[in-house]
């Protein structure tokens, strides 16, 4: 069933696509601030999409102001308003958290889990050594962990490794 009224505005579709793709790209970063911006972009993209789902834009949906055929659908607008408020609240909370993370660590990067690292180290210790037996596997892991910006690593080492 193709209803001409339901054909979405192409420009808005392009906007949605642009917002969501940019958002997904930022979401994959390790810095919390970028993740937040990514989430906000995706959130806005989805909200615009929701607005599109109501069909063609029309007049104010108030009986007596606009003829019934020309009214826009108020339901998605009401729902989008709710969604926007929710996105706003969540963004504020995330920003506060990123700030707290910066207060504690002087960076806002998402860190590795300690127990995960312990298990990874155990797994590495169990690996058969095919090459240089004398090489200490722990050094490798420490380097790797530092690259992953782990909080257990010595901070100065960590910075150096990341910069190189």
């Amino acid at each position, binding site marked *: 069933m193709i209803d001409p009224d339901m054909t979405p505005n192409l420009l808005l579709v392009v906007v949605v696509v642009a917002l969501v793709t940019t958002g997904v790209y930022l979401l994959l970063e390790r810095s919390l601030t970028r993740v937040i911006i990514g989430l906000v972009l995706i959130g806005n993209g989805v909200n615009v999409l929701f607005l599109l789902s109501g069909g063609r834009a029309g007049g104010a949906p108030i009986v007596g102001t606009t003829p019934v055929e020309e009214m826009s659908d108020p339901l998605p607008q009401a729902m989008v308003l709710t969604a926007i408020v929710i996105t706003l609240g969540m963004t504020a909370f995330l920003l506060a958290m990123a700030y707290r993370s910066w207060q504690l660590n002087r960076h806002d990067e998402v860190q590795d889990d300690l127990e995960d690292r312990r*298990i990874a180290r155990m797994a590495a210790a169990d690996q058969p050594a095919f090459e240089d037996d004398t090489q200490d596997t722990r050094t490798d892991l420490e380097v790797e962990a530092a690259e992953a910006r782990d909080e257990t690593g010595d901070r100065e080492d960590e910075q150096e490794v990341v910069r190189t």
Partner: protein
Amino acid sequence: MTDWTWLVPLPVVLPLTGAGLALALWKHGRAQQLITLVALTLTLAASLALLWRADAGTLVVDAGGWSAPVGVNLVADRLSALMLAISSAVTLAVLVYSLAQGVADGDEETPVAIFHPTYLVLAAGVAIAFLSGDLFNLYVGFEVLLAASYVLITLGGSAERIRSGTIYIVVALVSSLVFLLALALTYAAAGTVNMAQLAQRLPDIDPGVALLLQLLLLLAFGIKAAIFPLSAWLPDSYPTAPAPVTAVFAGLLTKVGVYAILRVQTLLFPGGRADDLLLWAALATMVIGILGAVAQNDIKRLLSFTLVSHIGYMIFGIALSSQVGTAAAIFYVVHHITVQTTLFLVVGLLERRGGSTSLDHLGGLAKIAPFLAVLFFVPAMNLAGVPPFSGFLGKVGLIQAGVVAGTPLAYALVAGSVVTSLLTLYALVKAWNKAFWQTAPETVEPMRLPRGMVGSAAALVVLGVGLTAVAGPLYGYTERAAGDLRARLPYIEAVLTEDGRGDGVSDDVSRAASPPPAGAPVGSTRTGDDS
């Protein structure tokens, strides 16, 4: 049925009112505690009343007098009422536990001024999710409970909690966005987000689009329920929160996701098109989750992995798409909410008594604290599914349902669930041996555990064991609930009544003024055909 509908909004209204009051009285710790306690006790009473009334017929409230397909409606059918009752009981027990902990610790671990209002909001969010009759309201319910959970998981803002909270919150937000995306597409495809009306309309839309919507919704709920490929966030984030918070999260939050999957799979997409996918996911969740638990050396993490693993059982029951399977899944949810919460509370006690949650540093607790040993042992065996506990009954029900289904995949899941059950037993016995039987590595100071903490944990242990005692009637209830879910029509008729609209006052207003607006073309063209 009309007489009792006033009960339906209570599980939402009471905690929210309490939250407002508690927030206003943030300077008066004792008043806050009293308010929270009273609000949650009343919620429990209302939920139990609903459990009783919903057995006689589905209760529906059109909020604000707006008729059903357009306005927000709350629906308490057997499934919702059962979920509400068990979740209220668990929330109350955890509250008592945290009150006792707060008294013992001088409220440093859980800053009461924030903790109590947030906790009440969490309870309200869970209630909205269980009661909501339309998908968008379900989304709002999710957001309410998630927002509260964000605050609770980062309580105190220590480095470790901020780390775990970041993962938890970002993942939860992504799943919410997927949910919102699914809602937007659903509205575009069907012109409604009311679940009863969707149940009528979704069969008419293009099957490809319907499958897309179904998969998007399953993806969003799958993240919340921690089904295997989407579960990595859970064991990383839960263990760092305070014990009562972890307990209530473990008990309730993932189960809200499971509830949403159950509702969507039965009411909106009854064809069972995603069942094979869900069965595979259930198998992977069970086996991989429990292998994670076996590898862990920290008891809180071990329990987090068993939580992931046992979500697989519920998905197994849901994905069988049969009445026996659904009934067993509902029973399993009830069992698992109780037992998982209990275990986390007991581990909180363990941590106080032994000074650690690492199995290397614990030891000799069976001699030092024999009552604590009993408190741990009973729910642990319950979780592993040792007869005669409710975990055994739930698993038997699921296995029975799998055998009835009889497909090779169902048999694979039956085998998987037995193996998972054995491995759960292995992981928990390992924890038991290390924490309770090995010689204590360091001397443990003698101390008394706060009576309220032990008491509430013990009450939940008793409730878990009590589920076995009432297993017959409870199974009967879940079977009736499953029957309703599979029949679908009782729900739809209760919400939309005979003329296809709920019984709010906007019914008359809209009819007197004009037909529904043209901006909702699908809706307006089909309203007449529906009834």
